[in-house]
């Protein structure tokens, strides 16, 4: 058998003065990197298997381990990068489509890092968030153009029937991550955190496990092209229904759950056979035009008695603005747009890294187009795809978003170390796996606590930034590009974003 040309990605360095051969690393590595030799009473490491998840480093009681990138001693080549070479060797050996997990990690421009916020000085004072109320509550759903208000006995009464809304205490929701791609405990952490904070999580295309029906008031369920787990009870349990047309990590193709991750429980929730790959088709096979989409949107509204908002999720592609406009006119209450940095449990690497556009640009264009067409208030805009901090959230709102979905950030809060091996089902942190030995590692009590803490911290930071800008309600910031300035961007990019260059005044 010919020898593999693949070189280990990571190097495991063990400080022998600290190592006590306690074997915690041996037990905790799902990839069997560490091995205990009883005769020598020593632990050895097999670097070839290491994925760099840092689990062993984190748990080692004497901090004896260091896992770092292994440098390959080939001649430096700006064109033929190590990643390209590795992929070529792999494909020459396996002949397969290379899979990957999480979001695009290539070095494309990150527009959030080129946008800067304003602050108030002298002419209009900033607001102290610790002393004055700052409203960051958000309502997602169709807003009316006119409100019919009557007076009855000297008090105002609203006559217009409002479309169903989702009430959020913070403009951040948890992205769609299916049960199957993530573990039961991870999903529980997200759902319970959403309930405690007063926001929502998204079931993804994996259906909804019956244990979570009681938390349905904080869950948005998805109807994706595979229609996994979709039945009347599923729609009734949720707070809102989202039709998934596309996903930022893999625009144009459907979802993919490898058979290794289809356990008995997952198979029951999705209503598919155990161990079979769950591959969603690329298009919904009953949606081939915008009119078809409108039909499905209203079919769901009928099925849910017009009591729940219907969201449509699309990927950020080249003509995303036109698509978004069509989606709004098709009756969606919420439009969710997912950019190229969006994460996934499994996708072909070549699609994840090369298809789609950054969400910042998509957002700016969609917001502008909808306002120009006079239909911006007919649907809320929620964006996703690599939101990393509360600063990104504020910038997104300034560009026009109503709220933001976080996926990767939430998983990182739960312990994810972005090793990008989710598709193997061997997540050492108990997040992207169905192996019962591994899923125990995520204690939902701890998971929930961490997510709540994260959003608690972000809401404080959001209030700080808003207060600094002299704004005391999120609505005043929404779409207000004047609060942003760009650095290091070309004229074209600034035009697309609709943002002035730093240094330009009002």
């Amino acid at each position: 058998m010919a020898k593999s040309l693949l070189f280990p990605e990571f190097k495991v360095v063990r400080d022998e003065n600290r190592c006590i051969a306690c074997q915690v690393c041996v037990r905790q590595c799902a990839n069997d990197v560490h091995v205990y030799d009883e005769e020598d009473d020593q632990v050895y490491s097999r670097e070839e298997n290491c994925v760099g998840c840092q689990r062993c480093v984190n748990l080692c009681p004497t901090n004896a381990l260091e896992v770092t990138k292994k440098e390959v001693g080939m001649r430096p080549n700006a064109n033929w990068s190590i990643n390209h070479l590795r992929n070529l060797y792999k494909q020459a050996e396996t002949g397969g489509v290379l899979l990957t997990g999480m979001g695009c990690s290539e070095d494309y421009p990150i527009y959030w890092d080129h946008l800067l916020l304003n602050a108030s000085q002298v002419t209009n004072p900033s607001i102290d968030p610790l002393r004055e109320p700052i409203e960051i509550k958000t309502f997602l759903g169709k807003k009316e153009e006119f409100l019919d208000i009557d007076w009855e006995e000297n008090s105002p009464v609203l006559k217009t029937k409002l479309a169903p809304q989702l009430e959020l205490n913070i403009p951040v929701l948890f992205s769609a991550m299916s049960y199957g791609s993530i573990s039961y405990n991870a999903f529980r952490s997200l759902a319970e955190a959403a309930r405690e904070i007063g926001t929502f999580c998204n079931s993804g295309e994996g259906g909804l496990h019956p244990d979570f029906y009681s938390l349905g008031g904080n869950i948005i369920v998805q109807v994706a092209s595979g229609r996994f787990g979709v039945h009347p009870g599923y729609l009734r349990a949720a707070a809102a229904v989202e039709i998934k047309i596309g996903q930022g990590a893999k625009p144009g193709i459907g979802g993919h759950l490898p058979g290794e991750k289809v356990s008995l429980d997952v198979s029951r929730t999705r209503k598919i056979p155990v161990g079979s790959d769950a591959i969603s088709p690329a298009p919904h096979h009953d949606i081939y035009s915008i009119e078809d989409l409108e039909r499905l949107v209203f079919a769901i509204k009928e099925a849910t008695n017009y009591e729940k908002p219907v969201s449509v999720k699309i990927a950020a592609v080249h003509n995303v603005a036109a698509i978004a406009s069509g989606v709004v006119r098709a009756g969606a209450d919420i439009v969710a747009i997912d950019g190229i940095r969006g994460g996934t449990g499994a996708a072909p690497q070549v699609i994840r890294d090369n298809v789609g556009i950054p969400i910042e640009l998509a957002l700016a264009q969609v917001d502008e187009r909808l306002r120009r067409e006079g239909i911006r208030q007919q649907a809320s805009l929620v964006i996703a795809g690599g939101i990393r901090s509360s600063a990104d959230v504020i910038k997104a709102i300034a560009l026009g978003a109503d709220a933001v979905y976080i996926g990767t950030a939430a998983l990182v809060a739960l312990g994810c170390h972005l090793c990008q091996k989710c598709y193997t089902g061997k997540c050492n942190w108990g997040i992207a796996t169905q192996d019962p030995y591994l899923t125990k590692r995520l204690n939902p009590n701890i998971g929930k606590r961490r997510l709540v803490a994260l959003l608690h911290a972000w809401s404080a930071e959001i209030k700080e930034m808003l207060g600094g800008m002299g704004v005391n309600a999120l609505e005043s910031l929404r779409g207000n590009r004047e609060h942003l300035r760009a650095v290091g961007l070309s004229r074209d990019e600034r035009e697309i974003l609709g943002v002035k260059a730093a240094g330009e005044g009002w």
Partner: protein
Amino acid sequence: MKKIHIHEEYCIGCRLCEINCLVKHSRSGKIVKAFRGEEPRPLPRVRVEEEGYLSFALQCRHCDEALCLENCPTGAMYRDEETQAVLCDENKCVGCWMCIMSCPLGVIKREEKTKKVASKCDLCRGETPVCVKNCPNEALTYE
């Protein structure tokens, strides 16, 4: 009385509880020294039981009706007034192993390497037990 509660659904079988218990009851109290330097190596008083993917750490339950205490002929097993923990007075213990014979959970061991006395969990003598403190997944709680 505060007791250690075991949540087997969260135990990941890492055995950090055993390691920290060992260090806590070692002579030096320092992890590398306790493992590599102390001869004989001290024993942990908690043991992780594992079968398939089910695992949990088991230590003395400090039972309200402690059989080890009832059957101890020397009175070495006694109940601490403050913590209500069942402790073994090593000065009185003669190593008759009546306690080992009585404990339905099998959590008492022979501390034979140094002396012939019984060894078991002492609830860390009133402090928050180190097994609880160091469990990375909160599979042991103290309430």
